[in-house]
């Protein structure tokens, strides 16, 4: 008797392998070596891994261009342009986070090797989610991503709020995962498979007489995703966790979780449940309206910079959902373009917050930002540009990102929805501008000077450069996003 092993296309899973391999290597290394592994080694490993992953992404892109998109390992993993671009975005976000975390760990005197192990493993989970073509693989990716993050959130042992945030995140995250996998079980019962392609074929070639099971399963999957991307009304954990987590981790969460979860959401809703578009669209409509409006409105009343960015990221999640709502190829491209431009901006924003937070990571009241741009024009100016990009001001990438999702929604016949989202953007603009004005206030010029370490400064500079460069000249990024179609779009 022989056992057949499904064929494995190693190039497709190479980024995931690199990330998990490096995490394992670092972990075993720290356990075996008698001398302590220095944080510089850990940081360089993460940087090297991210760069290697980007190089692999380049070859994957060429492979897809030559041989077309494909599935591997019994159709559980996809290699298409969409996954390649999403992986590259994750790698960039990890690279930026690692540099910020390096300076943060030195300042806070936490030994940081475990930080990088968790960050690498966690991003490996996110990479898996971008390529998953099976509900179970999505679940595994989601869990690997989340388990690493729970630990990262609890990483700051000097502050009680850090572990408190971790417990809240853990309990609600576990709840969300259980709901997600129950949804997967019901979809399996209704369609006979957990493979997204098989589900799509089944729904395309059969008429469900009693679709209740499928609808219930789909709804539970959607709730699980909504929890992870913090869509209203499943957002309650996010401000607390964003505030309690160490600030570099908050930036990592805001970027990497969003890329992973939205990539998987696009695959589930569009390439697998695309035939049920008319059923999930109204639900998503309500989610988008609530998420954009509530996120923007509650951001206004916050006095803590981290909480403000938490609500702002809820608002952004609503905008990214807009592209998913459209359900078209154009909508998918807009979703991808949005996360591509949002990820570097949000990591850089939280890098500024890390610096202003000072030793102990506690100076996050909005008061600490008064006059920052007068005292330190470069740092304050950078934050100002990053805020304007999140606002969606012209000449920044945020403008084109918002424009792309709104255009795709109007194209798909959602004029009212686009209008509501625009109103929410206007509400959000109020608090971004208020913050930007506070940066240039001249009544508090003698405040504390914030120290800017070199690596963190480079990350902030990179974020600003990306948002301005591609804000003025969005062509290359937009072309990438447009070419990055999802395999099996109906």
């Amino acid at each position, binding site marked *: 008797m022989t056992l057949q092993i499904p064929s494995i296309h190693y190039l497709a899973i190479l980024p995931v392998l690199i990330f998990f391999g490096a995490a394992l290597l670092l972990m075993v290394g720290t356990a075996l070596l008698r001398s302590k592994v220095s944080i510089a080694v850990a940081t360089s490993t993460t940087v090297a891994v991210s760069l290697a992953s980007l190089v692999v992404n380049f070859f994957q892109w060429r492979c897809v261009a030559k041989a077309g998109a494909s599935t591997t390992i019994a159709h559980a993993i996809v290699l298409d342009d969409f996954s390649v671009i999403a992986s590259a975005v994750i790698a960039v976000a990890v690279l930026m986070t690692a540099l910020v975390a390096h300076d943060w760990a030195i300042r806070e005197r936490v030994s940081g090797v475990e930080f990088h192990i968790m960050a690498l493993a966690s991003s490996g989970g996110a990479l898996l989610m971008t390529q998953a073509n099976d509900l179970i693989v999505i679940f595994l990716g989601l869990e690997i991503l989340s*388990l690493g993050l729970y630990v990262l959130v*609890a990483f700051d042992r000097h502050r009680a709020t850090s572990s408190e945030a971790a417990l*809240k995140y853990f*309990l609600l995250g576990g709840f969300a995962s*259980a709901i997600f996998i*129950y949804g997967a079980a019901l979809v*399996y019962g209704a369609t006979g498979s957990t493979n997204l392609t098989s589900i799509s074929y089944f729904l395309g070639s059969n008429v469900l007489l009693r679709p209740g099971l499928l609808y219930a399963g789909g709804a539970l999957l959607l709730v699980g995703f909504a929890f992870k991307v913090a869509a209203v009304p499943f957002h309650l954990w996010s*401000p*607390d966790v964003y*505030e309690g987590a160490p600030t570099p981790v908050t930036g990592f969460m805001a970027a990497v979780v969003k890329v992973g979860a939205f990539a998987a959401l696009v695959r589930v809703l569009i390439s697998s449940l695309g035939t049920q578009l008319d059923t999930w669209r109204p639900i998503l409509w309500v989610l988008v309206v609530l998420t954009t409006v509530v996120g923007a409105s509650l951001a206004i009343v916050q006095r803590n910079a981290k909480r403000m960015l938490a609500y702002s990221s809820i608002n952004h999640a609503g905008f990214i959902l807009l592209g998913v709502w459209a359900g078209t190829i154009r909508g998918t491209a807009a979703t991808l373009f949005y996360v591509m431009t949002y990820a570097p901006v949000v990591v850089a924003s939280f890098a500024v917050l890390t610096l202003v937070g000072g030793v102990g990571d506690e100076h996050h009241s909005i008061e600490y930002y008064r006059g920052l741009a007068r005292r330190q024009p470069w740092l304050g100016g950078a934050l100002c540009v990053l805020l304007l990009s999140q606002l969606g001001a012209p000449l920044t990438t945020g403008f084109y990102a918002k424009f792309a999702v709104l255009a795709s929604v109007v194209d798909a016949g959602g004029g009212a929805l686009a209008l509501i989202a625009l109103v929410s953007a206007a509400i959000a603009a109020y608090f971004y501008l208020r913050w930007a004005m506070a940066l240039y206030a001249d009544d508090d010029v003698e405040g504390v000077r914030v120290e800017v370490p070199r690596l963190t400064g480079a990350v902030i500079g990179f974020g600003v450069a990306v948002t301005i460069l591609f804000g003025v000249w969005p062509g290359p990024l937009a072309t990438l996003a447009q070419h990055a179609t999802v395999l099996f779009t109906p």
Partner: protein
Amino acid sequence: MNVPAAWYLVLAAILFGIGAFGLLTRRSALIMFMCIELMLNAVNLTFVTFSRTLSDIDGQAIVFFVMVVAAAEVTVGLGIVVAVFRRRPSSSVDELSELKG
């Protein structure tokens, strides 16, 4: 005696409901934690039942993945619970009120 498959599904749904209800109402972190485990095991029962009705082995294989995930969650979760309540007298989540706004 023949037990209809639907009964298993209903039992699983009830277990899942108990878990979800417990998670939302109980205040002890450890019990909330047990509720998550209960929900995951309800999912396992659902998978096995569907696996039988569909005559498809995949559902039973998936159960192992869910179990491994549940075990990993326990490891991380208990670590966090210990870290949080080392400086507090009880494991009630009501004591965690520093993050508000």
